[in-house]
């Protein structure tokens, strides 16, 4: 049986960067999955990402992305789209390392057969802010993209009879703060 990982990537304390973990919590609350599916909020794993891809046959990542489009725009990336541009010299070794992590997994021969990354354009990345309205409104589309991929993989997933409230415990923090750093005193 295929092992499937659905992982959200991003910092939940930095506004739209938290779209991935947010989507994971919505999926957990509203859907039932086949036993071979694991959902994970991986935060910002940097080069630790390969640790979580071990033994995984298919991975679906949800992450904020710079797409040059409007906030809430969604684009799907496959393995080759990510590997197309190689990683380069870093000075801060822990800076965003998705491409490098995927390249490392490829090198070690442990690459999952299927890799989909759902990239969502964010608009606000201020500390303490919650998801912006356009990104929040697009969450159902992110969920649809995950479900379509599971369908293609032949993996079962369906809405819960009694869906719960998503456990986005960080959500709404700093609402009073707004987007002006000087107001954060």
């Amino acid at each position, binding site marked *: 049986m295929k092992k499937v990982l659905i992982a959200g990537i*991003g*910092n*939940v*304390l*930095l506004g739209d*960067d938290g779209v991935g973990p947010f989507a994971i919590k919505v999926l957990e609350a509203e859907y039932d999955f086949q036993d071979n599916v694991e959902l994970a909020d*991986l*935060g*910002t*794993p*940097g*080069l*630790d990402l*390969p*640790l979580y891809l*071990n033994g995984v046959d298919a991975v679906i990542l949800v*992450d*904020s*992305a*710079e797409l040059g489009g409007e906030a809430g725009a969604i*684009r799907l*990336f496959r393995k080759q*789209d*990510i*590997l197309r*541009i*190689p*990683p*380069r*010299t*870093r*000075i*801060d*070794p*822990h*800076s*965003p390392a*998705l*491409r*490098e992590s995927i*390249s*490392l997994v*490829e*090198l*070690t*021969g442990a690459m999952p057969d299927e890799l989909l*990354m759902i*990239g969502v354009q964010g608009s606000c*990345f201020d*500390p*303490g802010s919650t998801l912006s309205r356009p990104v929040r409104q697009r969450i159902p589309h992110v969920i649809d993209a995950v479900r379509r991929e599971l369908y293609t993989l032949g993996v079962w997933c369906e809405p819960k009879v009694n869906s719960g409230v998503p456990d986005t*415990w*960080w959500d709404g*923090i*700093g609402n009073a*703060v707004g987007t002006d*750093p*000087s107001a*954060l*005193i």
Partner: protein
Amino acid sequence: MTSRIKIDPISRIEGHLRIDAEVDGGLVSKAWASCTMWRGIETILLGRDPREAWLFAQRFCGVCTTVHALASVRAVEDALKLQIPPNAQYIRNLILIHHALHDHIVHFYYLSALDWIDVMQIPKADPVKTASLAQSLSSWTRNSPQEFKSAQDKVKAVAASGQLGIFTNGYWGHPAMHLSPEVNLLAFTHYLQALEFQRKSNQIVAILGGKTPHIQNLTVGGVANAIDLDSLGTLTMDRLTMIRSLIDEVIPFVYEAYFPDVCAIAGMYPEWFGIGAGDRNYLAVPDLPTDSSASRFDLPGGVISAGDLAAVKKFDTGADPDFRRAVTEDSTRAWYKGGALHPWQGKTQPEYTDFQENGKYTWVKAPRYSGRPMEVGPLSNILVGYAQGHPLTRKWTDLALDRISTVAKQKITVDRLQSTMGRYTARAIRSAMLADLAVGHCELLTNNVLGGDVATHNPPQFPKEEIQGVGTHEAPRGTLSHWVVIKDGKLANYQAVVPTTWNASPRDSQGNPGPYEASLLRNPVADPARPLELLRTIHSFDPCMACACHTFDPEGREIARVKVL
């Protein structure tokens, strides 16, 4: 002739580290370290319940989640003068040890090895010669000619494909690279193997912490692990046995691959024991407490000034009275208002001016200890321990220095660890010490539980009046401290003084540079367009600015670029 180099990450979120250096006659004459992302993440904690602060604090950084979680609960416990049960100390310690082992292995193999290993030399290596070299260095079971041949084939396939992938943009063929093809192959093979051992170390964190990343088992007053040797779903003898067998799988990699690799490579680059010292001020806090009141520690702490090991000042506790008093954060040259303030009075009021090399130029404040810049990290940890005659530190340091001296065919003394290569060596020494301590703390926990003590938590009580606390942790990158002010059970101030803030700090009101800036002085630069030597020194500190965003950029703009001006 003076040239100016700027190494600048150009992620969409203005973030991370920028290094500016002036090079005169092939040596760095001036340097500036600048963090280009505003970091005011602590402000989201104000007004919150101190008991849940750690849940938010562990999201400050994606890579070192557990270290912030721990410093946070320790800060609140310090404010309440709340002791925690011995089991809670041991469980926390086991988590810290395995997080650190994992982190140090990642640093050497994935974050910095390719500054020293020339991957493009690997196809020329002889796998049989590599195996006999490797077997002369250690008894690691995975040093066979077949292992080396298989790793070499991977590199050959990548080279033949023309798509270098992860190896694109390395400084291959740089004049400062001079390992033999066989040593390059040896280290690269262990680079491929390292992932497996990091994963096992991380598994131990997950068993005790509930999950990774973001452990779930901490609580102000102890840990939330229930211990019952007979009941499923708690910390049972079975789980303790499982942890012990994972430890037995992880630590041979440290003893027989990581430690010997670092000693061999360090011995082949002896000139790097004379580069990158900086101001030689070192700060480390004691960690791995072995009793409830945290009065005894397995890792020592203290302060060394101007490289004088004989005059080391020892810290007796994690939050020594001197440490409480002496720490300030100076905003003179950072994009904040105000001068030097103690963290309990700390403010985070932005005042952005653009990069002004004679004015303000970074989002990182300048932490100072009694007004002096301090280097933090494994090198500080090792030097303060060695200077105090700490037996475990001496054991592994002396062994490392012996091995390095043999390879280098010259005497490398402990004083020469005050250098770029000394930081790499110190991290490997610390890992070997932690491997010893992993076994020790697993036994402490098991024996304590077998003796009938199953307590893991002392409940906190919050007074109405204002209280202050500091929680420290000697994290993989060095001294971390969280400073809290609590009033009426709510957080009234919260400041995290993180290791990279100490090391990447800018100049202060006296004009004294921070450790990165000082250590870059007199660094050689053979080719300003390919400043490999500067990266070696900066990477030796294991910088982490990752209290940051992780936005993926399909055009690959999430990278550093080098500009010679």
